[in-house]
């Protein structure tokens, strides 16, 4: 049940990351807009890793999380541990990205914050699953 919820939650993150990747690749998000700080965040040097959009890596990570959570929900042994490792790494990355937005870029992108929220929920779910001894 917990892993099923995690799979569904990861879909929200996947959709968000796909949207951000597309915005990045099309250049649309680089435009300055009245209501969002996304242009500042996504046009910053932190939005790419060796030329690749960070949001694309996020989409890949969410897809991995979805796959592992689905497999864990169907009782595949060992996938719960692997999921905890991936989600843990994502949570640490999320903390770093929120720090960058708050103290370095000085702008928040609401889509990036949604991703941070999703990763935090995933982390809580996975930690709870580990405490309950689910695998």
């Amino acid at each position, binding site marked *: 049940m917990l892993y099923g919820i995690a799979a569904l939650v990861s879909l929200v993150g996947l959709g968000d990351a796909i949207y951000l990747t597309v915005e990045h690749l099309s250049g649309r998000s680089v435009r300055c*807009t009245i209501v969002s700080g996304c242009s500042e965040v996504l046009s910053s040097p932190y939005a790419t890793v060796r030329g690749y959009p960070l949001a694309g890596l996020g989409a890949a990570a969410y897809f991995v999380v979805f796959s592992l959570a*689905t497999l864990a929900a169907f009782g595949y042994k060992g996938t719960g541990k692997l999921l905890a490792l991936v989600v843990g790494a994502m949570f640490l990355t999320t903390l770093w990205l929120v720090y960058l937005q708050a103290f370095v870029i000085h702008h928040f992108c609401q889509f990036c914050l949604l991703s941070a929220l999703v990763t935090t929920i995933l982390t809580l779910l996975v930690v709870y699953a580990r405490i309950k001894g689910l695998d």
Partner: protein
Amino acid sequence: MKRLLPFVIIAMVLGAGLLTARYLLTPTTTEVPRPTPVPDASPSATVANPGESGAEPPWTFGNPSAPVTLEEFGDFECPPCGMLHPVLKEYARQYGPSKLRIIFRELPLVPTHQHALAAARSAEAAGMQGKFWEMHDMIYETQKDWHEAFDTRPIFEGYATKIGLDLEKFRKDISSDAAEQRIFLDGKRAHSLGVKGTPTVFLNGREVPFESLAPEKLKVLIDDELKNHQ
């Protein structure tokens, strides 16, 4: 079968994700209809969706009879506007005033950009002494220098001195109602045309998709427009 089900679900999500990305990446054009004259129009007849008129007269480079008009809604603090600036300046040089007319409209995005309004007011104040474009160029070209400054007033006053403005008049004009009114009217025009961000460029009344503002793509659009006009 039950063992296979999760893999089927994963494959379906992967397929859906890729299809969504592909669909979203397909360029869309959000065109404002080309202004078309009303049939058997009287001299006072209006055109379709021309939007609000904006500040009059607008800041214009090039001849009114030029076959191609680019109207830019810009924010001096917006980084992509700063990147577009040298491109438009180069086009103005390449095509010349008889072929290309460029109109600049103020759209300071407040509060996203803390100094955008001060920059717009400074450009307007310079315009009141006949040096809008000189200040416009200087503010854009030094965007990185003042972008993070605490107080931009002394910086812009320095530019005013540099381009030979009467500093006392400049200081007065910056906070004048006339400057504010021009910025307000340009903003009203932007709103009436559905402009959502900066830079937004209209080519002979049609909005150029943001992704087409890349120098090589914009040049193709201008050339096509010139060809159509011949």
